[in-house]
């Protein structure tokens, strides 16, 4: 127990040291080039942004799109992953297609999505495309890895399909599933913000790009920091949950 606390403390100390070091390097380099805002200016922009209703609207827009992309992504990825994990036929037919599709840089599809899903829908679809695969792959591999004896047990006790799903399948894949979900949240952010860089009316991706074109580097960096912080916080929370679940 004590070694665990020690480890956690040392992890925390390490993170603080690293953050201080990074800030120092940031401070020094901001003095060297005007395109790099100082940490203080960035922090100021960060705080002021939250007093701006337009900015809050952008935050809300992006957050909503990410949430939708994340939920649709895990449901769709989970469903396809289940199909691949459970059906040999689905594996034969779908797997090469999916591997090929996963290799495509998804952002090239964006212009194709725009006329179909409009501006607000397309970035959700882009988020879904990014969030889909980690869930899909982890679920498919997890399901295939379930020991056959669990299914035999399920059959001998005459468990129904739903019972098998809830009491065998889901708990048996809980770890890969959580890993997939954790990756999906970060990738949903990537997909949505990437889409916003290209074309959108509202959203943090647009804020970043606009700040860049107006030369407001403190604004740009503070928004990027916000995105990183949000994705990082959720990932860490899920990662801790992952380690608790055994």
């Amino acid at each position, binding site marked *: 127990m004590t070694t665990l606390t020690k480890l956690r403390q040392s992890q925390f100390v390490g993170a603080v040291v690293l953050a201080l070091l990074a800030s120092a390097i940031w401070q020094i380099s901001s003095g060297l080039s005007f395109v790099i805002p100082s940490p203080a200016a960035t922090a100021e922009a960060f705080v002021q942004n939250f007093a701006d209703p337009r900015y809050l609207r952008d935050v809300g827009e992006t957050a909503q799109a990410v949430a939708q992309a994340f939920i649709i992504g895990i449901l769709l990825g989970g469903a396809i992953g289940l199909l691949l994990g459970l059906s040999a036929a689905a594996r034969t037919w779908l797997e090469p297609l999916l591997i090929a599709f996963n290799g495509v840089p998804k952002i090239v599809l964006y212009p194709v999505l725009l006329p179909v899903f409009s501006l607000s829908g397309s970035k959700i679809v882009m988020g879904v495309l990014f969030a889909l695969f980690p869930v899909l792959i982890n679920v498919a591999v997890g399901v295939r890895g379930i020991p056959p*004896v*669990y299914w*035999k*047990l399920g059959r001998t006790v005459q468990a129904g399909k739903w019972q098998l799903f809830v009491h065998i399948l889901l708990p*048996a894949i809980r770890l890969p599933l959580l890993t997939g979900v954790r990756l999906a949240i970060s990738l949903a952010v990537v997909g949505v913000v990437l889409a916003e860089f290209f074309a959108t009316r509202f959203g943090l991706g647009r804020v970043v790009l606009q700040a860049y074109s107006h030369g407001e580097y403190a604004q740009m960096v503070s928004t990027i920091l916000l995105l990183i912080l949000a994705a990082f916080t959720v990932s860490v929370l899920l990662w801790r949950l992952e380690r608790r679940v055994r």
Partner: protein
Amino acid sequence: MEGIHLNDVHVQFDHPSGITIAVDGVTQQVPPRSFVSIVGPSGCGKSTLLAVIAGLQPATSGSVDINGRRVTGPDRDIGVVFQEDSTLPWRNVRENVEFAMQMAGVSKGERAAKAAAAIELVGLKGFENSYPATLSGGMRQRVALARTLALQPGVVLMDEPFAALDQQTRIFLGAEVRRIWEQTHQTVLFVTHDISEAILLSQQIWVMSYRPGHVIDVIDIDLPDERDASIVSSPRFNELHNRVWTSLQKESMRGFQDVETA
């Protein structure tokens, strides 16, 4: 028609390279409330035969009747203990033992009472809240046994339940199974490749041959009902051991030659 009746059971597996005959015409009976073991070399069709009786695997031809009913699929009155570790790692001992009852829709209170009794029966009292990862292989097989016994099935099928365990644990758990059977008198069919284990536990032994799988010898074990591990040094035990060994040896030699010439 009490007990288990096997009527000319055949099982074959078709695969691209040909046909495997796993069970080739087994006609046998397990009398009600008796303890019968099947011994035979690995690959001779023991698990397949047990799977057919459990309703997990359809027979290619022939049929199985249990207590007068034709087997067409799994039945909660037929409990199965597998060779593989089948404890669910995300459930503690109590929850594992309750699993079969939970699937059967047994009420919470009844589940708790029956699980407690089954846990006590297999000697796991005090470990109710432990998770399988913290238990030894032998204890996990006790959990699986308790899960099967908790439903109080009339028939218990065991497929080499202790094969993965070390010799001492195996003998010890075998004695436990015999003790439990003396209390419950369920109809038990026990698969093993360990002759001593089969003799110690059973009232009758079926010797199965190497492919194609059928029963080549049926040996009644006329040892006293009250027996413990010390009986292995008795002359009668040795005679029985030799008899089973002779039947088996002929067969495993044939199996060995098959593999050698394959």
